[in-house]
């Protein structure tokens, strides 16, 4: 069983479209995250949710809207996609020990 799973693995879309990435964790963790990894491999936190509540919201355009229907799921919806949104997006989860468990990533390409 995959601990943190995100779909789709690859997402190719046109500028201006709206798309969603889904994430689920079966670890029973309370906290989930979205990280963005750019072409230089730099990983940056975007959002963090604890028990369905937003606790971290870094400087991210409001075109990005996370939604957590329950503590095992954290989805990321992106409106009006731009070229600069092209990156790999990672979902992660953690419990009290601060060690993050990552999904395998969604490679988003905006054309």
């Amino acid at each position: 069983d995959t601990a943190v799973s995100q779909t789709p693995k690859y997402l190719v879309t046109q500028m201006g479209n709206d798309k969603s990435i889904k994430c689920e964790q079966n670890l029973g963790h309370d906290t989930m995250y979205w990280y963005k990894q750019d072409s230089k491999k730099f990983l940056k936190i975007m959002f963090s949710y604890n028990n369905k509540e937003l606790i971290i919201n870094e400087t991210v355009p409001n075109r990005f809207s996370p939604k957590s229907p329950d503590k095992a799921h954290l989805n990321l919806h992106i409106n009006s996609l731009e070229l600069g949104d092209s990156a790999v997006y990672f979902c992660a989860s953690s419990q009290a020990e601060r060690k993050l468990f990552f999904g395998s990533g969604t490679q988003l390409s905006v054309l």
Partner: protein
Amino acid sequence: GESVGLHLPTLSVQEGDNSIINCAYSNSASDYFIWYKQESGKGPQFIIDIRSNMDKRQGQRVTVLLNKTVKHLSLQIAATQPGDSAVYFCAENMVGAGNMLTFGGGTRLMVKP
């Protein structure tokens, strides 16, 4: 050999040699540090962690060293194998920052057979 993991430099080592990957962290208030390994097409995987009340921690073939005086972290991999080829990231967590990890820039390790 060794390398500073801030601008995705590449460290190339011979199979069987020891590798040292270095990381300079930014915040003296950080009290927890962690190393991740990211293979091509995969998400980062936990390798080893260390709290600020320690200066060394050993795992299986890996050792993490922490020097709080100069805010420096290193990952040593003994008897490097081809399967160790990946990008390695250090990350820090500050007291009061919840579980949020701030990542360094990564170092690519290439193992020559």
